[in-house]
């Protein structure tokens, strides 16, 4: 198409000007894409972070912001008290981890041991065996559940691990379960170490009066979660009433989701604002450069009209030029935005959370291109209209 060919020639004749004009578009389109990618990346991140965590649990911890949080530290006896005295609590497991070398036969692997109850601490299914029974927990059975990663390291031949012995220091635990492979995110690991052992056994073998990070509380009725959290905090404050002004905080999936949602809301707003302002600036830039172009080319427009170009044909010429600018800007903006989005997704979200989120590339592209086109048409109309309405004689006389 001749309009396109001519527009390309005009834009190529003023490369620097063209580039400066589309900078705003590039940033705007990039920002719009970033919003989309951030949006689904964040929801993917939340899902990845907490998806493996059981829905019927929450954490309770001393508020580390308070001055003397050492005194607020929780002990096994606090946990025992919570199990008995707080309504709706089905079980309580200490939050505590120890790093040890685990052996099976001749194989060994560093492993993080942690305490678990008979409640499921994760939603991940089992590859072998199953969860601890309440009896095993109560009877301090020396059993353990391996993470899939640890299983693979210790059983490279994929053999059946059930009933085999796991040696840690001078202790021996019988393997009664292996979790299926979880999503491999950096952050996911926090919700389960490599080797789970009943908290009764863990307290005896590894805790030895050590301070707990906090506790995982399992509730019977999930709809009463909030009330139970308050009750747990009150009970803990009551237990530590000799320490003045003591504070505990609880933490569940729902509140975390809300927190992330709030952070993401602010982020979206900022990026959205940047995108909107960029597109507006881009629009004004396009209008400005087109007005300059129309003025510079007044004589050319006069010639075209004199030889018989209709208004619509002059209008089309300048519209094509604006749209070509838009196209180049969109192209670069898209390439940049998608590259950044892909990078953030692959290197941050997937690595961090192990969740592979399907990012809405097509939707993001469509939205960005639509916005950019609307802005271009909105701001390109006036200059193009002005060009098409020039008086041919005056335009021809222009110098």
């Amino acid at each position: 198409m001749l309009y396109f060919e001519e527009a390309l020639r005009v834009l190529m004749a003023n490369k620097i000007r063209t580039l400066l004009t589309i900078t705003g578009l590039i940033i705007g389109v990039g920002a719009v894409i970033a919003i989309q990618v951030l949006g689904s990346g964040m929801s993917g991140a939340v899902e990845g972070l907490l998806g493996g965590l059981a829905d019927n649990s929450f954490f309770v911890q001393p508020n580390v912001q308070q001055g003397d949080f050492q005194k607020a530290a929780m002990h096994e006896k606090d946990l025992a008290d919570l199990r008995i005295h707080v309504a709706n609590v089905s079980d309580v497991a200490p939050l505590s981890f120890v790093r040890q070398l685990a052996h099976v036969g001749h194989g060994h692997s560093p492993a993080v041991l942690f305490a678990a109850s008979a409640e499921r601490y994760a939603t991940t299914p089992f590859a072998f065996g199953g969860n601890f029974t309440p009896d095993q927990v109560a009877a301090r059975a020396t059993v353990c559940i391996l993470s899939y990663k640890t299983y693979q390291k210790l059983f490279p031949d994929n053999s059946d691990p059930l009933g085999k012995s796991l040696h840690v220091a001078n202790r021996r635990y019988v393997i009664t379960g292996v979790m299926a492979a979880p999503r491999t995110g950096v952050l996911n690991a926090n919700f389960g170490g490599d080797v789970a052992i009943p908290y009764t056994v863990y307290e005896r073998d590894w805790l030895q009066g050590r301070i707990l990070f906090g506790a995982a509380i399992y509730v019977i009725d999930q709809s009463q979660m909030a009330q139970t959290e308050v009750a747990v905090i009150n009970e803990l404050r009551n237990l530590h009433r000799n320490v003045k002004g003591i504070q505990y905080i609880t933490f569940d999936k729902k509140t975390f989701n809300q927190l992330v949602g709030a952070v993401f809301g602010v982020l979206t707003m900022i990026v959205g604002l940047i995108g909107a302002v960029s597109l507006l600036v881009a629009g004004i830039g396009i209008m400005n450069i087109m007005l300059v172009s129309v003025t510079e080319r007044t004589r050319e427009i006069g010639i075209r009209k004199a030889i018989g170009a209709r208004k619509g044909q002059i209008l089309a010429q300048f519209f094509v030029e604006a749209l070509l600018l838009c196209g180049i800007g969109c192209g670069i903006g898209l390439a940049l935005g998608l590259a950044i989005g892909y990078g953030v997704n692959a290197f941050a979200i997937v690595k961090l959370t192990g969740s592979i989120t399907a990012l809405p590339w097509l939707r993001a592209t469509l939205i960005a291109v639509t916005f950019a086109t609307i802005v271009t048409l909105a701001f390109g109309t006036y200059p193009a209209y002005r060009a098409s309405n020039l008086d041919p004689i005056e335009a021809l006389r222009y110098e």
Partner: protein
Amino acid sequence: MNNLTRAIDVRDVTKVYRNGAMEVPALRGVSFVIERGEYVAIMGPSGSGKSTLMNIIGCLDRLTEGSYRLDGTDVSALDDNQLAEIRLKKLGFVFQGFNLLARTDAVKNVALPLFYAGLSARERNSIAGARLADVGLGDRGHHKPQELSGGQQQRVAIARALVNNPAVLLADEPTGNLDSTTSEEIMRLFGDLNAGGRTIIMVTHDEEVASHAKRIIRLRDGLIVSDERSAVAAGTSPR
């Protein structure tokens, strides 16, 4: 003589330019008829209204009063797009300053009216190439205007003016920017075109150039002071 055969029929045409409160009467009642195939020179001192008249005939400007029929069509009743259509199909314009698109080669300049007429790229290129060959520039198709001499540029402009096969060729001081030898070449080209049946109206204030035409209309202060056929041409006049 049938009115429909008349290329140009101008009756009591006036043109008043308004600059704010000031009114400049450029044409003060001009009437004439130009039959098909005529070759007319419009002469007159500077400011006498020659360009104004040409712009009205060329449908670039509107008359203030009077009537103008081009090839049988009442032009004063048409809107901007219809005027553009007339300029495209029925008129070819040649300017003193050539008015070619810079950065655009000769073929593309000549092909531009064909694009506005909706022809395909293939048709445009073949027709434009042929018209360039007609004016003796068949081998210069891919030269840009600045790579051509003044005379060559004017010939490209003439090829462009003729590319849609218009009824009338209009030229406002076509030799004004050219030396006398080159002017002669252009005049020979005009002579050939007229011999081939093309209606030509040309503004000039050069008597030598005007002598090539078969009829000379002289203007002064927006009025026709004389309208005569040259002795040589009288015998071959269509009348």
